[in-house]
């Protein structure tokens, strides 16, 4: 049997190999950059910042909020903010909302379950030092729902982590509410 030597695969020329490497690197960079841009867009919302006490606009609305200096803020510039006290014990979700204050309070309170079986307490109506109306209700001993404003409203749903009680953080919540302009 005649051994016919296999003809060797012809190697691409050196210039061609370099071109492939370059293409690969370009693709990799493109993927990284594209992914980075996409991740930055998503992660930007998750980024928690330390509030400097300046007024923040909530998304594309006219509503604004001053998060007390030193608090931790996530979602600055969006129409939903999540803020935490510097000790991380109280977390409050501040959101621009539709509807009147009482329906908004029902909605916020209904979605807030700081403790199993904790029903919302009686709503309390007050006028803040800012001049804005507020209606709020306790949810058990660790939750609090509030709605600032009457026609355009901003809701606040706050909870504290065990073993803390909301009673210890009411003054802090009051400061946050006073900074809201619905």
């Amino acid at each position, binding site marked *: 049997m005649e051994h016919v030597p296999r003809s060797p695969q012809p190697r691409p020329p050196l210039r061609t190999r370099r071109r492939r490497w370059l293409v690969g690197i370009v693709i990799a960079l493109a993927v990284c950059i594209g992914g980075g841009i996409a991740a930055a867009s998503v992660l930007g919302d998750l*980024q928690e910042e330390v509030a400097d006490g300046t007024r923040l606009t909530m998304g594309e609305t006219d509503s604004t909020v001053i998060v007390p200096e*030193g608090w931790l803020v996530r979602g600055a510039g969006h129409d939903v903010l999540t803020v935490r006290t510097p*000790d991380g014990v109280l977390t409050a979700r501040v959101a621009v909302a539709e509807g009147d204050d009482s329906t908004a309070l029902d909605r916020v309170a209904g979605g807030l379950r700081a403790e199993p079986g904790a029903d919302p307490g009686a709503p*309390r109506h007050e006028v*803040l030092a800012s001049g804005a109306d507020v209606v709020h209700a306790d949810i058990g001993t660790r939750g609090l729902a509030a709605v600032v404003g009457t026609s355009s409203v901003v809701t606040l749903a706050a909870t504290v982590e065990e073993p803390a009680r909301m009673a210890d953080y*009411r003054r802090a919540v009051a400061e946050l509410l006073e900074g809201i302009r619905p």
Partner: protein
Amino acid sequence: MRRIVPCASLLASAFALAGCVAETDGAWRPPAWEPTPIVETEPSETANPVTVDGLAGHRIRNDDLGLQARFTYLPGRDPVVDEYNATVENAVWELIDTRSEATAIDYRPQAHDVGAGFADRGCVDGAAGRPAADLLGDPTIGPVDGDGALVVCEIVLARGPFFGQRIRAIAGGPAEIVADTQLTHLVDTDSGELFDANALWNDQAAAVIGVGIIDRMRRDAGALTLAAPTIDPAAVETVHASLSTTTPTPDGLRITLAGGFTAEALVELGAPAHAGPISIVIPAETAQPLLTDLGARVVAAAEEPYRGPARGAAGLDRIDCTLLPCVALTYDDGPGEHTAGMLDTLADHHAAATFFVQGQYIASRADVVRRAVEEGHAVENHSWNHPHLPALTPPEIVRQLKDTNAAILDATGVPARAFRPPYGEHSPAVLAAAGMPAILWDVDVRDWAGLSDAEVTRQAVTGPEPGSIVLQHDVQESTARTADAVYAGLGDRGFSLVTLGQLFTDGLPSSGAWRSAR
């Protein structure tokens, strides 16, 4: 190449996520509400337990009218003391008049059964803060069966020259409280100025204090606003009325708001009216700009010892025997060997009595007779040597009484104003010759008849009614031995032991023969 891309992605994610959650500060503490300058205290807590020696505490209960009253006089008599005591007494008379109209029964002082417990008399610590129903149902404070009306006092101030007691008047029964009012009666015993506690505060005080109270109540009710609290005129009026309850305490000034306090700001918040009384203390530094000059002087005296009228003799105190159940103990035939000891016993009980002395014994015991007068007792005429006066001629009667009057005046400096005929024997001729009223008795303990001590005590304690005149003899050993038990027993029945001059509220009669003051 296949390894590079995932690695780069992982690194990018790790960097991104590492910066996602900020570090928390475990040392941070949430802010607290600004403290209100008002401190809530327990309503039942005695704000300023004051013990003042020598006050003349009283307690009456009238079961026909359905009332009980406990109050305290300043001791002694002078224009300031008299005016203050009259103010306190008026509060009691107002209650009596109201009950008298309601029941169509005229008021007459009542004494009570043996063992009634009326030795416990005068003001009650903490009475101002106790629930009205609790006081009505307390047999030592309220009317019989807890239905009717009461007056109870609490000493709230005895500092420097200032003295004050809070008078609380309650009407109602187990089913309903009809009225519940309080007023603090104060006096500057130096200047003689009488005032109620409202006079301690200036015009701004009610609103400022009210705002503080509302601020506390709204925080308790869950308020979140940082707006300054507001107060409506009705709430100001309620607080203003409560200023009359002001009690100076070592920490400041305490006031008590009646139960049911609310304000428009609290109603809007959905806060319920306060169920019971609210007792609050306004610290001295907070109160300072809200005080009148008088109020500032009262607060400044907080650390000073009381220097008001000191306790004097019982016979020199204010006594109104149309209000209080009084009895006059009279002792004949002395002065004798037991008289001084009986004066000691009378002093121990802050009691007064009347001694009908024989002129023949005065010179030998002039010091005892003088002491009796100095300690507020009355010393009257029992003839020179105890004859049967109707058997004497008019000149002899006159001499018996005139010589004795002279001896009394000589020993005491005070003239006798009445006489007791020996054996109670008198006639128109005796009365005409005497020129003084003859004072007899309606209760004869018969201590001269060899009775046991127990029987002497029983007769002396159970025999009297309000207005009675009791006959005993300070020369009888059994009378001296039983004096302590007799005074205690009469006090326990609610009696005030008085001189004859006090028993006859319009003064001793000028003539005639009298068995009692009824």
